């Protein structure tokens, strides 16, 4: 798909003027057009209902809860932004916020780099294409809970297979406590996230790579561009729209990650791996303070909203297409 298609698609997204425009068109529509629209609406209805019930309602309910002092088993009273003020002064929350940025930033950059590398390799493969593509997806399709439990076992300070291997290969003389130290633990959970998320990047970028016409590369080669120049000046700009979409999804998922950290460390040791989601869970469920838990969860929203806005703006302005070949 040419890159400008993404920009064009984004430009058709609903805007503030869309609703009056639709109403106007509905008034002037013929009977058959109205029937078509009715059918379209009926077809959309299940999806809209799902979104309303499973996305919109929980989200609005979460906002309401964050403004109350609700605890489990008792509806709370409206307390304004008290929960947010309390969180602002909460050292564990600040640590969780800091951890979340480190976790998301490092994991996304690594996933993008590795995903790109794998996609380029797969794109240029001659044999075993299907087999390698299918096997590459394994980390992504295995249920996260199961694969993370396997990682937990591999990181076990006493029985770690990784330590055993490194020790016998002569890389280490004392075992590494993968989930014990604050820095090592954070990098260990990032590693697992990268392992799990790289296939998503790779397969999507591979799909993007395959839409780039070989003619462009040939033309660049004829003009004397070497492999790196062809990647940097041709492939990368043309791939930018796909990359932005993948990064957008990944940032959202990684920023709100829960399962992986909950299983590996529970946020420990000494809160050094707590993320927004795990701390929100600890507040809302383990301490029964649903209002505060909701506030910790909602605190993610403005950040994610800005990320989404930036990326949509970037795509809509056609930045990718203008990247220059």
């Amino acid at each position, binding site marked *: 798909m040419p890159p400008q298609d993404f920009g064009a698609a984004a430009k058709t997204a609903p805007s503030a003027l869309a609703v009056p425009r639709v109403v106007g068109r509905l008034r002037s529509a013929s009977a058959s057009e109205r029937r078509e629209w009715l059918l379209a609406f009926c077809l959309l209805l299940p999806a809209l209902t799902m979104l309303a019930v499973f996305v919109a309602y929980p989200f609005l309910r979460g906002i309401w809860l964050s403004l109350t002092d609700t605890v489990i088993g008792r509806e709370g009273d409206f307390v304004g932004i008290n929960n947010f003020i309390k969180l602002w002064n909460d050292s564990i929350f600040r640590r969780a916020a800091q951890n979340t940025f480190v976790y998301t930033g490092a994991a996304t950059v690594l996933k993008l780099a590795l995903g790109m590398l794998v996609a380029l390799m797969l794109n240029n493969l001659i044999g075993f294409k299907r087999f390698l593509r299918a096997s590459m997806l394994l980390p992504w399709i295995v249920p996260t809970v199961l694969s993370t439990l396997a990682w937990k076992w591999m*990181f*076990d*300070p*006493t*029985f770690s297979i990784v330590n055993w291997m490194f020790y016998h290969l002569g890389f280490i003389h004392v075992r590494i406590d993968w*989930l014990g130290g*604050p820095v090592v633990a954070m990098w260990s959970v990032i590693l697992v996230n990268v392992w799990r998320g790289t296939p998503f990047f790779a397969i999507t970028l591979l799909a993007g790579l395959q839409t780039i016409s070989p003619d462009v590369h040939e033309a660049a080669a004829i003009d004397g561009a070497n492999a790196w120049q062809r990647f940097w000046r041709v492939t990368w700009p043309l791939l930018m729209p796909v990359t932005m979409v993948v990064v957008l999804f990944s940032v959202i998922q990684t920023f709100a990650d829960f399962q992986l950290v909950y299983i590996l460390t*529970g946020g*420990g040791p000494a809160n050094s791996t707590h993320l927004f989601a795990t701390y929100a869970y*600890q507040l809302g469920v383990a301490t029964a303070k649903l209002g505060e838990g909701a506030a910790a969860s909602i605190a993610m929203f403005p950040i994610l909203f800005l990320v989404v806005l930036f990326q949509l703006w970037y795509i809509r302005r056609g930045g990718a297409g203008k990247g220059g070949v």
Partner: protein
Amino acid sequence: MGAKRQTSDPHDALTISRRGLLKGAAAAAGAAALGGIPGIVQAGQAPAYPRGTKLHLLTRINFIPAGDKVFIEQAAEFGKQMGVEVQVERIGENDVQARAAAAVVANSGPDIILLQNNFPHLLANGLADVSDLAETHGKAEGGFWDLSKANAYVGSQWLAVPYGVLSNTMNYREDWLKEAGFSKFPDTYEELREVGKKLKSMGRPMGQCFGHSVNDPNSWCYPFVWAYGGYEVEQDGKTVALDKKGTLDAIKLNTAMWKDGFDEGGLSWDDASNNRAFLAGSISVTNNGASIYFVGREKFPDIAKVTNHAPNPRGPAGRYYHMATHSSAVMKYSKNQPLAKEFIRWYMDKKQYEPWFIAMSSYMIPPTKSWFDHPAWKTDPKLTAFRDSIKDARHLGYAGPPSAKASEALAKFIIVDMFAKAIQGTTPEESLKWATDELKKIYGA
């Protein structure tokens, strides 16, 4: 009800008529007057629980599988006698509280949940009053231990019926201690440091969990603070009292012990990690329940033979224990509350409780005092340290009253993380200040 029951499947055999229903109700009333299930059996008539009634109980997966086996068999027997279906759902212990919280919020779920620690305080709004049941049971069995009552009695009512107390005390390798030149387990924390130093130098370190896990980290950290004269909060339940010289001494000594004597993997351990490490011969001493010993007896008899248990070390202020209590809560939303209470009465009755207690090999201390001299404790002298520990147990949030705030401090791992931070390199003073500040936010709120 023409309530003919067949033993194979009582539901299939139940047909309800108005007259039959009245008869059944009369039988149930008579049974209640005679006293629970024995009365029902004597009346020869199942009580009038509607056809298809299901009773759902949620509990943790027990570290002693034999105990779970007996309990599940007993539940099936109860279901058979009452003409209802009893479902026993077992999940990981760290997930029980989350499931209970979700059930209270959703207003549906299990009828009975076996809650750990002081969670009845945390979930008080979602639990039914079971005072009648608890009072009767306590009175019949010599009264509840203070700790059991502290965790299940909220305000002026019982919100759960104490079920048992899981004691953590010191598990150690007798043979390795002897090889290191120690004929008995050390009595104080200072002496334990010396023992640990020697053991670690022999490649047999002690092991202790400091991760975010529900039992073992708390069972080590809280008693350590208490033994040195520290505690969370004053008797008023509001004034945070952690910032004491004793607490600081405990943190310093623990950090020194960590370097001198502990396996340095413990920061990421959970409740099962030290069990595995001990049974694999990687560690020599750990604070744990008797589960290591029991699994050893079955699967690693050579290790069980040289394993023994000792009381927690003593500090300048005494010897204390944090223990995980377990108690049966009937959920407020449950439409089967009378049946749920009847089931609790049934499995707490000595006729059922005793076989379960024996199957558990004394792993769990019964919540009432009359069991203290039960012959089962004498079958294996290696287990008496667990039984005796109940007398020195303290509730969370000591010296204040038991409360949801103490639960919050526990759930946030404030005391555990205070020790863990110091191990990770934060100064003991800063770790103590951090924990004190966090407790002030909790108790001052």
